[in-house]
């Protein structure tokens, strides 16, 4: 996995860190994409919530997944809604291979616009944003296995 630092890091609105989301937004410091997982039934839980939706267990921990995903859908965005990446950029919904019911809205990067296609294989890459409240590592996805 590579850091996306060759060009200027775009402005991004950063998440407010909480005990529930910290591992997700900071795991990239160790190149890890982390989700809460039920330690009783193995179900990955996203977005975070206080108990497993399957068996209602509160025995939850965050665990790293492989970082591999498939592209469920995407949109090439041309509209300057807010400061952000250079236009156009690709907004994507990806499904992690460990449990496709876990989806992330994210950006598809390092991919020519006309080569994006649904079901393509992707891997995570993190964009580092230093921040006084705690550095954030935004999980983006790029083509790769």
């Amino acid at each position: 996995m590579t850091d996306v630092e060759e060009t200027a890091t775009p402005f991004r609105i950063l998440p407010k860190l909480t005990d529930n989301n910290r591992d997700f937004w900071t795991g990239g410091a160790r190149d890890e994409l982390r989700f809460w997982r039920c330690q009783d039934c193995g179900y990955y839980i996203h977005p975070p919530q206080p108990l497993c939706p399957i068996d209602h267990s509160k025995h939850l921990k965050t665990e790293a997944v492989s970082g591999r995903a498939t592209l469920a859908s995407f949109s090439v965005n041309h509209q300057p809604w807010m400061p952000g990446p250079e236009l156009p950029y690709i907004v994507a919904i990806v499904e992690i291979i460990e449990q496709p019911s876990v989806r992330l809205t994210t950006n598809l990067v390092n991919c020519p616009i006309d080569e994006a296609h649904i079901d393509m294989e992707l891997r995570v890459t993190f964009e580092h944003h230093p921040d006084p409240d705690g550095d954030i590592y935004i999980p983006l996805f790029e083509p790769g296995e």
Partner: protein
Amino acid sequence: MDENDIIERRACISGVGQSAIGRRLFRDPLELTLDGCLAAIEHAGLTTDDIDGISTYPGPMGTPAGFSGAGAYDVMDALRLQCGWYASGLETSGQLGSVVNACLAVASGLATHVLCFRSVYEGSAQGEKGGRAAVMPGGGGGGGGGFKASGFMQWNLPFSAPSAAIWIAMFAQRHFYEYGTTREQLAWIALNARRNAELNPNAIYRDPMSMDDYMAARMISSPFCLYDCDIPCDGATAVIVSRRDAAKDLRNPPLRVEAVGVRIDGRPSWDQFDDLSTMANRGAGKQLWERTEYKPADVQMAQLYDGFSWITMSWLEALGLCGIGESGPFIEGGERIKRDGVLPVNTHGGQLSAGRLHGYGFLHEGATQMWGQGGDRQIPTPPEVGIVAAGGGNTCGALLLVRE
């Protein structure tokens, strides 16, 4: 299911009304709201003394700017209404969820005539020259100043995906992928809306639009171009939901609420929903047909939400008005869905051309057509059975109406 269990049938639509509608009116939003409400009360043949319930979507909200022109208390107090029941809220089955709530209220006997309204001033709120388009409730921010995203927007804003335009575009893209849907098909939602708006004096955009115009428009978020996105505007729409036995002798023939569809079968989420080629309307459509002997083939008119054009296609499928995945061929060429076609759709111009009155515009238009009050844009034979649906993503609701 016993017919007595389907208590929405004890309710009907008895009147509709609208304020002035414009791209940017720069008028007091409460004034517009009251104009719309009083118009509906009068249209039903009632007075404010008859109104004993009030229901609105979404209730008072400061952001996004212009999203809510007034809350239930504002209207209740301004008109000195005495209410046996009242409610507002965002977390319901689309904008028409507030109308469904009113049906349940009159069916239960808590009220007899419920004033329902939806008021927006998103046009004016964006300023003289327009500005940042509205983002979904819970969004906001917009950069800098140490703003941090929390709640569900933390899963969108860091990826520069603040708008439902992008979220719905990804549903549409998935539909394109699974069923071979094309932009040339999608275009017919916008083109049909515009040709209908040409006949609607209250529509925002009435100049003719061609396929070439559509294909030449700038892209917003693929597959959506500018003309796939609705038009922020100012205006208020109101409808009166009455208990049927109290509406027999009013000004308009009662439009019986034959069945409603409000179910979500799946996660109440945009991006975590199990099937990205459909939305929460999937469950709402199924539920509606489980509650009536009528069939999709009986529907003579469909007023289907078009906050983004593809949502109308999605509703056509969810309501069984065409097969799953078949909405592209169904609308292609625009013959079936035209005003004098087999299934007239969005005869006022939809939100794409008549303005983003946010759900209630479809109910206003459906009732107007069923009463034969459509003027130049009247469907040649006023429909006896019509369907009205609003919302997208995780917030969807539909009503099947039958004229008595």
